[in-house]
């Protein structure tokens, strides 16, 4: 069985090396600025770290995909162009872009550079994917985590663009690339400053027996001492709706496709992506080697495929809210 590529995240050089050493086929990363959607203090790669990262990965036969997946801000488009040029100079294997203007720039300026359409580009139909192929020559598209497996298959059947889907990680499901919840609370969102719910707006208030999470002063959740916590985003807050207080938008949980891995491969998915550039080398190690083991066990066909309890234990441990879901993939409704 032809296996899809395993694409792993890295927010630092040690994380990149962990991904490469534990069996990633490609590592994706970003520059230390707001051209990528994980623009957190201290995270990501400056030019020097990037050079070393590319060298390390290539020496071990692993690809580097560079995410420039935010939208160029008015008056500062040159910064995004500069990042695209720098990525090409670094010799990355592909640039992951979301902004149509940047796709246009990159394809005109660097016609030889391989381009991928980011999940932030929010292409959910084969028409959208084929449009980006025709106009910008994209070679691969990352599909948003809102599609069912049948819908993913429908896209694959109607395009020659390689399709990449998410296989593991925290969920960000609200119409990816178009979510404004963070802007509603803080005036800043992934598409504008490169971070959802930036840390400077987050406050964890510890009181005896409870911890309160506030985002720009707005109370978004309250946890008992032993209760698992999630990321401080509005989508994962508990709100009072018609008298009931619950996770009205989404539970803090992680996507985990191990149970449906054979189906994902069967429909022709070209690459499986792991979320988490904001996480540590320990996470990258744990998730990469688990998914590598699962994929490798499918080399000789799906007949004997079984999700090992050890894999699930390892993945659920690092999951947000310490639980896992198949997300939209197996949703009966659309």
């Amino acid at each position, binding site marked *: 069985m032809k296996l899809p590529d395993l694409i792993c995240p890295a927010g630092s050089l*040690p994380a990149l090396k962990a991904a490469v050493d534990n069996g990633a086929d490609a590592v994706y990363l970003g520059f230390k600025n707001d051209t990528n959607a994980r623009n957190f203090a*201290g995270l990501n790669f400056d030019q020097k770290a990037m050079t070393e990262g590319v060298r390390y990965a290539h020496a071990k036969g692993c690809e580097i995909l560079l995410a420039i997946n935010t939208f160029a801000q008015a008056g500062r488009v040159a910064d995004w162009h500069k990042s695209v040029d720098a990525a090409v100079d670094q010799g990355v294997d592909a640039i992951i872009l979301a902004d149509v203007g940047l796709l246009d720039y990159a394809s005109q300026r660097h016609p030889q550079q391989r381009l991928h359409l980011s999940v932030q580009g929010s292409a959910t139909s084969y028409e959208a994917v084929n449009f980006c192929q025709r106009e910008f020559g994209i070679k691969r598209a990352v599909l948003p985590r809102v599609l069912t497996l049948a819908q993913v298959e429908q896209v694959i059947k109607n395009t020659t663009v390689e399709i990449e889907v998410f296989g593991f990680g925290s969920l960000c499901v609200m119409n990816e690339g178009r979510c404004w919840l963070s802007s509603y609370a803080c005036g800043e969102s992934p598409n504008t400053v490169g971070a959802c719910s930036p840390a400077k707006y987050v406050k*964890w208030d510890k009181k005896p027996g409870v911890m309160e999470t506030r985002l720009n002063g707005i109370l978004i959740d309250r946890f008992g001492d032993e209760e698992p916590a999630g990321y401080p985003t509005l989508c994962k807050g508990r709100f009072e709706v018609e008298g009931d207080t619950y996770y009205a938008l989404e539970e803090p949980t992680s996507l985990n496709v191990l149970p449906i891995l054979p189906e994902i491969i069967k429909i022709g998915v070209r690459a499986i992506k792991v979320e988490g550039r904001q996480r540590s080398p*320990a996470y990258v190690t744990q998730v990469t080697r688990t998914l590598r083991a699962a994929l490798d066990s499918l080399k000789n066909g799906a007949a004997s495929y079984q999700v090992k309890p050890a894999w699930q234990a390892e993945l659920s441990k690092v999951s947000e809210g310490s639980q896992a879901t198949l997300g939209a993939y197996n949703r009966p409704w659309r």
Partner: protein
Amino acid sequence: MNTSFIIPKFRLPSFIASVGEKLPQWPHAMVLVTALNTALKLKFLPENELTALNGKSFRVHIRDTGGEAFFTYRNGLFRPLFSRSESPDLSFSAYLSAYLQLMARQEDPDTLFFSRELEVTGDTELGLLVKNLLDSIEWPNLPRLKLGKSI
């Protein structure tokens, strides 16, 4: 992957904390600060990025020993704070096993945060910066701690 040394999740008995809290706290700060300054001297810590920590006060609290260390970073050196600051800029609280797992890169801080084993209060952005700084350090010859058993 062979099974080698793994730091287990453990809790020290609660009487230790009740004794620990009554002991003077500055030795903890001394030990921590000396270790950090050594790392600085050996150039493990990215000096230019550390400027963001200048003048900030930190508290590291160990839940099951009751120990806590207060320190600051000023003019290129970590320094212990001998009087406990009521509201440090950034405060970490966790069990000893969680700190050990973090240092060995055996567990990810977000994982420990989700499972409520690590608590971060104060300036969250500063906390994120510290976390990412620690993650980006390339420790030479890390003791060969393996992450979990073979899978």
